[in-house]
């Protein structure tokens, strides 16, 4: 009955709205559930499954094609045959089986009985022995009887057992031969079809089916989904979430599914295999994925499972555009550790590989480090770990003896005007100091610096060449004595360690150059240039040659115009930082124009930081002026001053821009002259900038715990110390050593005239000899034109070198000295005779006649007893071509046989040992004796 009783709410309407809201909520729920489960990574995983399946299918097809169908048919047929025969023999087999079972029972019975009897036997024997001992002969006799009765029984049982077992084995073999053949053929079939069956299973597994769909369905995928997030948890490393350090969890492998498997090298990203699996990711590599994760090396947000939020960084502008279109990519504003672009990825190696001169397998990073050292970055910018480096510019403490003031001013204006290959950067008249006011101040500063340097350097006594030199001879000497080990001369550019030898006639005087090349340390005690022990004539020739080259254009450059107002203004600016303006002015009035110029120079040097590269009097303890770069790779983006320059807001973009054009960030800014940016212009190539940026990005805050870093053993540390010395003095400019070929070898045609290869030198020479040789080199190979220079090492450096060579060759420190017993007279005589038989003295002459061709000559063997290690001589004599391929010393013991059959039983090993022992007592007198004997009597 429709009773229209008033109600608080209309039931119909309520129901209606309830229905609407219910349906809306339901739809909302369903939409939410589906949206939540429609994740990007699931799409990629499904794609990967499909891709793998397609790959497996094509592999399956290939395997099926390559299957030897004929052989398979054959095998199947023989299997059918064997089975048939087995079937035919079935009755036989069953009969045999029927016999086998009762036989087995019999065997068990016999065995048990046999064992029982043995036990009785033992017991009887015990009693017999006891009673015999006790003296109860009667009882003993009883047991004796029992024993003798039992023995034959036991024996017969044993025989019976053996017979039964033999019979059983026979029957089993009979059975087996039918079943074994079957098994064999089945195995062969399996082998043949193994690949195909394997791939078939694989394809099956990867096929989509209903069960998988259900397991992956929204709301049901908590149980056991096939599509799931994969992650690598690296427990000891932390990600910095500001105010919290969270365990590193890398979920990259959720999408990058094929990355650690071989076989996906051609797959599209994200499934592509990682490059160099033997070095990265595989469990046998030094960087297995489970221990290192992904973001340790690549950066990015490992916790994310989304393309955009993972902070992937595009390689180039083009790729950025592509990503924006395809994946709606944008840079992650609030995640500062963005992924490193692939061309800078080597920067991460330095996180763990600390304390080494060159990081293994990271050529770009190493190039960056080398460039940073060569161009003197560490002179202005402090970097922890690179404090043990050296100043790259020449010392200016005695510069008044070398240069003229005019030359210095022309040089400072633009160093490349004098020599395009110079490493000295340009400091003045750059983009932010090119307006007329700055130009005046630049000129004043340049003049001031020249004035300061000329006044504040100590003169050095110079020697004059005694006679005029021959330029042609000088050129030959420069090209053949060893200068090319560090210097580029004309078109011969094997090395770039020291300055290019060009245009010196416009720079220095003969006195200075002559004194310098005779003994560099006389003018500059800290120089890296060694002495080549030049005679006076040689030095004179070289001086004449080098001074014959001039740079006319540079010489005719007009020195810059110096305005006294500019000088005064600069002086006042500096003075007013400490004094009030009026006091400063008063001080200035007191100073003469020369004094003002000198003051300007001093302040400019202080401000510009010249002492970072050059040793300058008065600035021995000055602090470097540049920003500390120890953690530059982790610097907050907001801390980098992008100014008004429109570049990407990333570290690498800023570094690249800064290195290319350091003053650009002053663009658009209003700054006083001395507030402007000071970094000089190096004119780096794009490649160099790339390497340097890699290096800068490698300077990160160290958050890797010590036990995870690559720690160096003491030996490795000593090798690194040696490597630092080698890179400082450019040993590899001449010598092939430690994995690098000697640079000059590329310009020497006859490699027999090239500086010796030093691989394995630690195993070859005695340490004491090596120490003294490096201290004072003496000629070993008389035919070589190149000279080993005298470096005037300290004791520490000499020891470091000896250790370095020893460790590289794997030589352990030993205290046994020569370690060979003193030779008897017969042994010495045997060695002497062999020496003559092999005619060693023909090439190993002590005093070779001048004019003999190089192929004739070999080192004087008188040196052998002090220089060579006895063990090494044995290896060398056995086969010199093995020890040093290409050496002119022939193999005398080809295939281990000696051509001398009448001494020491023709035994090659004995002869070698006798000759080695003889060499250990080979004095100059012996050498003379042998030489005299070798001359044929006329």
């Amino acid at each position, binding site marked *: 009955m429709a009773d229209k009783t008033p109600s608080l709410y209309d039931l119909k309407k309520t129901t209606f709205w309830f229905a609407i809201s219910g349906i809306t909520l339901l739809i909302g729920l369903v939409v939410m559930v589906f949206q939540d489960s429609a994740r990007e990574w699931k799409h990629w995983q499904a794609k990967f499954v499909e891709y793998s399946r397609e790959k497996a299918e094509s592999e399956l097809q290939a395997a099926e094609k390559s299957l030897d169908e004929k052989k398979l048919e054959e095998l199947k047929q023989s299997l059918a045959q064997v089975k048939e025969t087995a079937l035919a023999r079935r009755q036989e087999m069953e009969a045999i089986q029927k016999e086998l079972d009762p036989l087995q029972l019999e065997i068990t019975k016999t065995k048990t009985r046999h064992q029982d009897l043995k036990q009785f036997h033992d017991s009887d024997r015990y009693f017999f022995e006891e009673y015999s001992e006790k003296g109860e002969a009667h009882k003993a006799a009883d047991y004796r009887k029992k024993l003798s009765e039992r023995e034959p029984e036991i024996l017969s049982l044993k025989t019976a057992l053996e017979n039964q077992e033999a019979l059983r084995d026979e029957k089993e073999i009979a059975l087996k031969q039918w079943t074994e053949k079957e098994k064999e053929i089945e195995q062969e079939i399996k082998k043949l079809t193994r690949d195909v069956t394997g791939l078939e299973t694989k394809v099956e597994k990867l096929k989509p089916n209903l069960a998988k769909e259900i397991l992956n369905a929204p709301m049901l995928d908590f149980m056991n989904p096939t599509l799931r997030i994969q992650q690598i948890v690296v427990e000891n490393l932390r990600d910095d979430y500001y105010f919290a350090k969270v365990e590193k969890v890398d979920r990259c492998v959720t999408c990058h599914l094929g990355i650690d498997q071989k076989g996906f090298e051609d797959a599209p990203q994200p499934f592509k295999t990682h490059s160099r699996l033997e070095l990265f990711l595989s469990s046998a590599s030094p960087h297995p994925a489970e221990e290192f994760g992904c973001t340790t090396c690549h950066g990015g947000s490992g916790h994310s499972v989304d393309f955009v939020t993972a902070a992937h960084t595009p390689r180039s502008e083009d790729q950025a555009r592509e990503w924006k279109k395809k994946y709606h990519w944008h840079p992650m504003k609030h995640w500062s550790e963005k992924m490193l672009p692939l061309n800078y990825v080597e920067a991460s190696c330095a996180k763990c590989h600390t304390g080494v001169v060159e990081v293994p397998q990271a050529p770009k990073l190493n190039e960056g480090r080398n460039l940073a050292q060569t161009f003197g970055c560490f002179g202005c910018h402090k970097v922890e770990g690179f404090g043990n480096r050296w100043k790259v510019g020449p010392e200016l403490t005695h510069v008044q003896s070398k240069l003229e003031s005019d030359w210095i001013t022309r040089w400072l204006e633009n160093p490349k005007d004098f020599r395009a290959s110079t490493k000295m950067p340009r400091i003045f008249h750059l983009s932010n100091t090119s307006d007329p006011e700055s130009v005046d101040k630049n000129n004043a500063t340049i003049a001031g610096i020249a004035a300061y340097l000329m006044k504040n350097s100590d003169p050095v006594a110079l020697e004059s060449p005694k006679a005029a030199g021959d330029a042609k001879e000088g050129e030959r000497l420069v090209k053949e004595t060893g200068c090319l080990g560090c210097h580029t001369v004309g078109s011969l550019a094997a090395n770039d360690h020291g300055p290019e030898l060009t245009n010196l006639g416009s720079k220095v005087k003969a006195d200075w150059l002559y004194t310098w090349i005779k003994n560099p340390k006389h003018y500059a005690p800290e120089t890296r240039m060694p002495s080549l022990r030049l005679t006076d004539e040689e030095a004179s020739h070289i001086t004449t040659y080098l001074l014959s080259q001039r740079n006319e254009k540079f010489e005719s450059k007009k020195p810059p115009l110096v305005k006294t107002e500019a000088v005064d203004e600069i002086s006042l600016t500096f003075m007013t930082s400490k004094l009030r303006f009026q006091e400063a002015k008063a001080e200035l009035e007191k100073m003469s124009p020369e004094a003002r110029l000198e003051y300007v120079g001093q302040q400019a040097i202080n401000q510009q930081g010249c002492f970072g590269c050059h040793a300058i009097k008065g600035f021995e303890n000055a602090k470097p002026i540049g920003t500390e770069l120890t953690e530059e790779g982790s610097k907050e983006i907001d801390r980098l001053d992008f100014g008004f320059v429109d570049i990407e807001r990333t570290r690498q973009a800023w570094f690249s821009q800064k290195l290319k054009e350091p003053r650009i960030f002053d663009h658009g800014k209003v700054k006083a002259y001395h507030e402007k940016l000071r970094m000089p212009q190096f004119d780096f190539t794009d490649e160099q900038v790339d390497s340097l940026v890699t290096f800068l990005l490698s300077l990160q805050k160290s958050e890797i715990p010590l036990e995870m870093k690559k720690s160096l053993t003491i030996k490795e540390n000593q090798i690194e110390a040696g490597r630092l010395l080698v890179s400082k003095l450019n040993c590899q400019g001449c010598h092939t050593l430690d994995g690098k070929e000697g640079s000059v070898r590329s310009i020497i045609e006859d490699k027999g005239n090239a500086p010796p290869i030093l691989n394995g030198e630690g195993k070859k020479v005695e340490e004491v000899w090596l120490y003294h040789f490096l201290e004072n080199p003496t000629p070993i190979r008389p035919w070589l034109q190149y000279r080993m220079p005298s470096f005037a090492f300290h004791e520490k450096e000499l020891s470091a070198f000896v250790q370095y060579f020893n460790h590289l060759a794997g030589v352990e420190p030993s205290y046994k000295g020569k370690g060979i017993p003193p030779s008897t007279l017969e042994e010495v005589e045997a060695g002497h005779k062999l020496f003559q038989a092999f005619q060693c003295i023909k*090439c190993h002459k002590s005093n070779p006649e001048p004019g003999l061709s190089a192929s004739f000559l070999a080192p004087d063997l008188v040196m052998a007893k002090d220089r060579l290690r006895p063990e090494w001589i044995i290896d060398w004599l056995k086969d010199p071509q093995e020890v040093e391929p290409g050496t002119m010393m022939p193999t005398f013991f080809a295939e281990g046989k000696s051509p001398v059959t009448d001494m020491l039983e023709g035994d090659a090993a004995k002869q070698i040992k006798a000759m080695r022992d003889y060499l250990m007592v080979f004095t100059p007198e012996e050498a003379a004796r042998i030489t005299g004997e070798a001359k044929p009597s006329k």
Partner: protein
Amino acid sequence: MIYRTLSVSVTMFCVSVALGFSSQALAGTVTGKVSFTGQAPTPQKISMGADPTCAAFHKEPVFTEDVVANANGTLKNVFVYVKEGLEGKTFPAATQSVLLDQKGCRYTPHVFGIQVNQPLEILNSDATLHNVHGMPRESKEFNLGMPIQGMKLNRKFDKPEIMVKFKCDVHPWMNAYAGVLTHPFFNVTSDQGAFEIKDLPAGSYVIEAWHEKYGVQTQQVTVDEAGTQTIDFNFAG
């Protein structure tokens, strides 16, 4: 009866003649000479003063062997061989060894040919130290010392190469050249400048002549059964 005997013997005679001919059918020959036109460079005198044993061996002056022009206008020491035409065919390696002698501080012969895996016997006939420094590009370089007079060393080449240079480091004027081939069809011109390559199967070939100073020249030749083809090379000085 007689007819039978007669027919049998005639048949046998014909067969043997045919056989005789057929064995010759597989044997073509290429002969010729290498002539030399122009002015031969004057041979340089070799100074053996550095090693008295060598100097004592030679009463007359010794000259370099890089260009030896014969009196009849031909060139000695030219290595002639089949360069192309034998692809796919294999030939058994000859077992007889080739002798390279060091006599009077000179290599004898100066130019020679050898097959792959054919033994090379190196002999030192001198009472002084020689070393045999072979510098092949295809195989491993070797350097063997021979201090004893009369000693022999054996070596084999496992890869073909035109031409392997031999030198002695103790006596820098000594050198020799070896042509290593997979087949036996090569020859070196003599004092008369003539060469002969025998037993070639019928076919078309490219013959190359190599001289250490004047380089290489090639010619095409087609050999039929039992035929002799004559080709001539000419090097200009």
